[in-house]
């Protein structure tokens, strides 16, 4: 298993798009933290409804940055199918469950590490700006560390969902659309649905779950973490079943 993981690691780091995607993800996540907090200072951006969640606001960029992390996950799987290299890969690693696990682990490790670092940077940068407005929180304040770690965790979940959907759909565009629907669909299209569907269905899509786990006020429910984990587990399991059944 560790050999297969090492191989997947080599594959990830030997392709330029991995670096570009992570760089863009970092720029978007941290850049938005700056834009939003500076905007709040000039009064051009306002917080509507609820309380002022300083930690959550500095992590809002994560919500856009998630796209690039999901795409990193999608591409590790779909690039194998679109280039045909899956046949070379499966000839080297015929245990398909092991291959899928290794891909999940490689993407998970890279996104967890870099995603958490980016989230922390966004938090610290955002708070530095908010400090000028005398409404910053520190890492020592209640819920701050949890919010930053949750943001990293949410990005990791999106990366893993990308791998699973890539394995299920095998086409880059289809898998990216699917993962974006899970991440952003509810916010972009939620208004089209009746309130009951929004509250009981769309609210449990990964996107809204992610928004809640990254917030400090109101604090997230345990059920939000469980639901996010369940999304990853169920889709990974589906991918596991399908990858065994299909011909390469």
């Amino acid at each position, binding site marked *: 298993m560790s*050999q*297969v993981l*090492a*191989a*997947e690691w*080599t*594959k990830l780091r*030997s*392709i*330029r*798009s991995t670096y570009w995607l992570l760089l863009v993800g970092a720029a978007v996540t941290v850049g938005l933290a700056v834009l939003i907090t500076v905007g709040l200072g000039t009064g051009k951006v306002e917080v509507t409804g609820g309380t002022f969640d300083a930690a959550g606001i500095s992590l809002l960029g994560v919500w856009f940055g998630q796209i690039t992390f999901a795409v990193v996950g999608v591409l590790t799987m779909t*690039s*194998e199918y679109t*280039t*045909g*290299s*899956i*046949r*070379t*890969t*499966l*000839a*080297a*690693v*015929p*245990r398909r469950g092991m291959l899928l696990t290794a891909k999940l682990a490689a993407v998970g490790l890279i996104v967890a590490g870099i995603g958490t670092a980016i989230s922390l940077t966004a938090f610290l940068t955002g708070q530095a700006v908010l400090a000028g407005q005398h409404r910053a929180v520190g890492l020592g304040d209640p819920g701050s560390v949890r919010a930053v770690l949750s943001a990293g965790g949410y990005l990791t979940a999106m990366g893993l969902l990308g791998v699973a959907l890539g394995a299920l759909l095998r086409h880059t565009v289809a898998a990216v659309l699917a993962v974006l629907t899970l991440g952003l669909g509810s916010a972009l299209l939620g208004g089209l649905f009746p309130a009951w569907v929004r509250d009981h269905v769309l609210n449990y899509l990964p996107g809204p779950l992610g928004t809640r786990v990254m917030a400090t006020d109101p604090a997230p429910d345990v059920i939000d973490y469980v639901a996010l984990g369940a999304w990853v587990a169920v889709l990974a399991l589906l991918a596991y079943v399908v990858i065994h059944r299909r*011909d*390469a």
Partner: protein
Amino acid sequence: MIEVNGVTKRYGKTLAVDRLSFRVEPGVVTGFVGPNGAGKSTTMRMVLGLDRPTAGTATVAGRPYRQLVRPLRHVGAMLDASAVDPRRSAYDHLLALARSNGIARTRVSEVLERVGLAGVAGRRVRAFSLGMRQRLGIAAALLGDPPVLLFDEPINGLDPEGIAWIRSLLRGLAAEGRTVFLSSHLMSEMEDTADRLVVIGRGRLVAETSVAEFVASGTRAEVRVVAPQAAALADALTRSGANVVRQDTQVLVVSGMPAARIGDLAAEHGLALHELTPQRARLEAAFMQLTQDSVEYAGEAARS
């Protein structure tokens, strides 16, 4: 050793491979030939565990491929030279494969050297010609120093120098006692490369034999004779039991009699010979004859 036992592969209504059985032995080069669409690539994919047979089993060294731990050390395969991510360098492509099977990093440089790609190891595969990709595919097959090697259409897209190179490589690998199995839709490619043949058509086994036997079985042995007194010679040969067809005023095509006996008879009768040539049955002709009934996509001309 590769064993295919009663393998059937069905895609919806299409029967790609139909109860196919054969063995590929070590120490020789075995050619896997059949017209396009005969099921060669499908069979190779099933041997490698990429596709699941609808029925039957395929084993390598007595085990199904999917059960092999670190399979690259047992079997090396080049199915499709384009089965590479073009964004990766040749070196990184092989390094990832090597790592997945616990093969030392130094081995990557060795195989790149062996296939003549050491100079472009750091270049991305996108920039490679088809011939270079073929060589990279062969390097990947050799990576684990495996006793069994499979190549799907390895000669496709190579220049004459490349063809000569791969022929000597394949023969060398077989001489080291390895099992070498390669497919082609062109029988002529097998003539100087393979020792044994597995011939299929429409997913069924047509022949499993040696190249020599295959040639002998395919066409009757004929001798071309040029003689100034062709009519007299034809009489003499026919009386001694040969089958003679007069092709031209001075040209005879004789079957059912070896060249030496024809020469002796001519001498006995005091008839001059200007040419006496045994016609080697062409492998291609023998192949066409055997697979005629099993060509799936025959052109109209070939059918009539």
